């Protein structure tokens, strides 16, 4: 299988701090790649560099072989890359349905088609009954699903999800896992930042582990679990906390 996303040498500095240092990984078509790492490891920065929200200082991002490094976020999005934000960004003064319509309008200019696709997306994330509420009225978990629906309505080939299970109550997590697996089934390629170890071990085909802006592992979940550097940096601290 060819790589849909190839990242090499990606580097971002903020003053003296290296938020991302020489990051390299690839995502094959139809694969789920998880990104783990303690807070401040550079996960969200990596998303921003890939999706064009920040320009990298060095390195390259290839989408299906095409160099997209440093393109504007809307250009990258139109090439079929959707993302969600760790700090959620729904359009608060639009209704839930209208939020998702904006996503669907990336692919169609017909309002009726956009509305239908939006309702499909909302049904998929099980948010249909909230469609006429304003986005600002939703709970955190619902807003996460809304962002997902909005991104999916764009019919992307690649989606980058930033902590979809963060701040979501335990019973809802099973639903989110099923949802991600269903997306994979449909052929979507997924990169997900995830703090919940059980979730990521279960979902990811491969895991990229970051620590202090550096890649410390990129391998299957089983291999990453055995990697001493990962255990030290991340898993160890989780075990201690639990």
């Amino acid at each position, binding site marked *: 299988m060819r790589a849909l996303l190839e990242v090499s040498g990606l580097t971002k500095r903020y003053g003296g701090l290296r938020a991302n240092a020489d990051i390299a990984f690839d995502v094959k078509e139809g694969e789920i790649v998880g990104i783990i790492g303690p807070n401040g490891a550079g996960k969200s920065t990596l998303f921003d560099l890939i999706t064009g929200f920040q320009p990298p200082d060095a390195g390259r991002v290839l989408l299906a072989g095409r160099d997209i490094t440093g393109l504007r976020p809307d250009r990258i999005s*139109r090439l079929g890359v959707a993302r969600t934000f760790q700090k959620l960004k729904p359009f608060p003064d*639009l*209704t839930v349905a209208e939020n998702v319509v904006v*996503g669907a*309008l990336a692919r169609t200019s017909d309002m009726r088609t956009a509305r239908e696709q939006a309702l499909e997306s909302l049904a998929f994330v099980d948010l249909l009954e909230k469609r006429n509420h304003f986005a600002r009225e939703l709970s955190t978990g619902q807003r996460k699903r809304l962002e997902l629906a909005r991104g999916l309505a764009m019919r992307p080939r690649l989606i980058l999800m930033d902590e979809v299970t963060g701040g979501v109550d335990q019973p809802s997590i099973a639903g989110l896992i099923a949802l991600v697996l269903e997306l994979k089934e449909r052929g979507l390629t997924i990169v997900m930042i995830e703090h919940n170890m059980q979730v990521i071990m279960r979902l990811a085909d491969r895991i990229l582990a970051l620590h202090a802006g550096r890649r410390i592992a990129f391998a299957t979940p089983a291999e990453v679990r055995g990697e001493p550097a990962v255990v030290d940096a991340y898993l160890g601290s989780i075990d201690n906390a639990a």
Partner: protein
Amino acid sequence: MARAERLWPRPPLWVSALGAAAIAFLIVYPLIFTTSPSHHLMILILLYALMAQSWNVVAGLSGQISLGQAIFFGIGAYSSTVLFAKYGVTPWVGSLVGMLLSALAAVAIGVPTLRLRGHYFAIATLLIGSSVQIVFQRWDWVGAASGLYVPIERASPFYYLQFHTSKVPYYYLVLSAAAISYWVVWKLRRSRLGFRLQALRDEPDAAASLGIAVARHKVMAFMISAAMMSVAGTFYAQYVLVLDPERLFSAEISILVLLMAVLGGSGTLWGPAVGAAILVPLSEYSRSWFGGTGRTIDLILYGTLILLVCMWRPSGILSLLEERIRRRAGKP
């Protein structure tokens, strides 16, 4: 079940009835109130309703606070008047030229300033507004500080857009212009462009992540806004037949249209009209009540009103109603 659902919520019956009554009232208004001052008052209300709506497109929909709408008011007035006075071109064509020039001016102002976030756009439009005023006050070809007169033509009033015996034709002209502008904005708000503007107003990053070219869309909103304002300028020139750069390009006009839209409800369709219907009579009457000193009294009243709105309902008088209507959609 989802397929059968209406694309847009239907407003409640009493809102539709109120709207129909308002439209009927506006159509027969000159027949009920037959004096010239009452025509003048409503002409000003409709003119300001159009101007406040123009501000609402760039600020209410795309979230960019413009403090320079008077630029386009002036461009509209000067375009039609210069073309008519110097070349005998009908103001109908002049208003189209004005719209085009205003849209171009919006691109020239918007491209460098609208990619910046924060208040740069507001500050830039305010400063450019006073610069443009100074240019017109010094520009001899267009009459410099003394301005221009629209040459009087008594024949073919509709061709020359001058009506010397009655204000009623002006009334229906401005009513039509305002009606068209509200219809355009009504369609715009439900269009792809309209949704994209509201999206980038609320969350520019999320909008960009959904493929929306944020800066380009803001410029488009500004162009539409400028063209609308320009129509008001041409109308005003034909109505008063005198072009005074001091008045046309004044910051007061820019601020006034902002106040009206904010008072009525910025971002709503009818808010600017409601704001104009409240503030124009307030301004006119306070000036006549207080005589010459009323000039500042009306500004004090505006300030008080805005203060009250900010305390009571920061999103304007109409926002409450609009939310109710939208939420009603598809309720089981």
